[in-house]
């Protein structure tokens, strides 16, 4: 059973933002969905690596990429050719 404070905690972990008036409906819907997911408790079998699968590697060759101008074109906030992000500290 997921509580309203669990929902607020998950929203915090996901950096998703949640408004107070949404919490009750999200909690009810979450519990209905998790009840449905309980069918997974009856899954049989062990997790085992797939046999016969091989990695496909390629050489690490330099390929053309975006120019600095193109890479910055969609950024909301830039300074001296860098992307600006919110402060961490």
């Amino acid at each position: 059973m997921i509580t309203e404070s669990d929902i607020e905690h998950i929203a915090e972990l996901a950096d998703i933002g949640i408004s107070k008036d949404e919490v009750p409906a999200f909690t009810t819907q979450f519990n209905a969905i998790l009840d449905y997911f309980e069918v997974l408790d009856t899954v049989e079998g062990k997790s085992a690596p797939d046999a016969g699968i091989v990695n496909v590697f390629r050489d690490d060759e330099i390929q053309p990429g975006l120019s600095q101008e193109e890479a910055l074109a969609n950024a909301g906030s830039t300074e001296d050719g860098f992307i600006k992000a919110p402060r961490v500290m």
Partner: protein
Amino acid sequence: MAGTLEFSPDDRYNAFITTCRQAPFADGPLAGTAVAVKDNISTAGIQTTCGSRILEGYIPPYDAYVVELLRSSGAAIVGKTNMDEFGMGSTTETSAFGPTRNPVDPGRVPGGSSGGSAAAVAAGLVPMALGTDTGGSIRCPAAFCGIAGLKPTYGRVSRYGLIAYANSLEQIGPMARTVEDVSRLMSVIARYDPRDSTMLDRPYDHRPSAEIKGLRVGIPEEYFGEGVDPRVGESVRDAIGVLEGLGAKTVPVSIPGMRHALAAYYVICTSEASSNLARFDGVRYGPAVDTRKSWHEAYQDLRLEKFGTEVRRRIMLGTFALSAGYAGRYYAKAQIARRNIREDFERAFREVDVIAGPTMPTVAFRLGEKSDPLSMYLSDILTVPANLAGIPAISVPCGKVDGLPVGLQIMGRQFEDERVVDAAYAYEQEVRA
């Protein structure tokens, strides 16, 4: 014969988010053909939103590989089609740009999440369109709007430039009014691309053949069980009867893992989404984050404002399903269920060449009918197994119930897209004749 196509459609069903009034085109097999592209596929110079406010105004600096291929085949890209936000829905109602309506009955949804592409084709605005299919998002709207749509084998079409929702499940695929056009568009987009590391070099070069004598068609009981409208089941059985009339043999098969399919699918897709959608933070693209606020506060405020409710619900579900203490119960179990389902299909395909059933358990819903998330999820039960197993699956129109289209779904072995196309083509040719 290169030129410019004038495109000014009467978009009364809200099929498009963006239209290109002057669409240039080159020489090639599709020269001058209007093609619509779902709005989660990157188009250089044309806004690409994924149906979300969080990408409003985003102009990709590069083309997805499928778009490069379209352009070099001569197609005129005439617009970007409406979709459930980030592909998360089965109705196209979760789009931030308003719902698309079903051209067959505007009081009904077109299905989703590629509802804009399906409606644009069904309304005759374009002959063909690209969609994407993570859990049925090509086949569901194809069925609801009465057109054809193919989810290719996983690894057959490049995902380079597709804005990711659930990487291990999704494929770009063709939608059109006829199976022949689905096949033509597939020939253009199924080309090897080293930039998608999950691809194999298995190009599609095929002209559909209606010769299906001796084809063994598996009929899984699970596709005609509880929750499937009996009238839909009957239409599909009639269509399978048409295949038998053409010399196909039916064989009962079983996919017992189906009982876990939907839960496994929703655990896997939300888990992948919670990781993929972390990149939408207003720093590199989309409406700008307020850089004066602190890190978490700035992101939470922006994501609350710009993401719709269904997207936030799925990010939270995935975050929860992957969290310490729950990952074993949900994510790990879902992966085992996925492998079991794949093995069920492999076992069935030792006895049969294709598997047939309904695409959707019902006809198109009324607008607003699926307001509860779980009831919307449940409608995907017949389409998600093909995504979990990575196999090709096509939906082709097979009659109507209450005046609304029903889709016949035909699934095949991995990399046997040609065979499902042929079976659908044989059916289509026979009923059109």
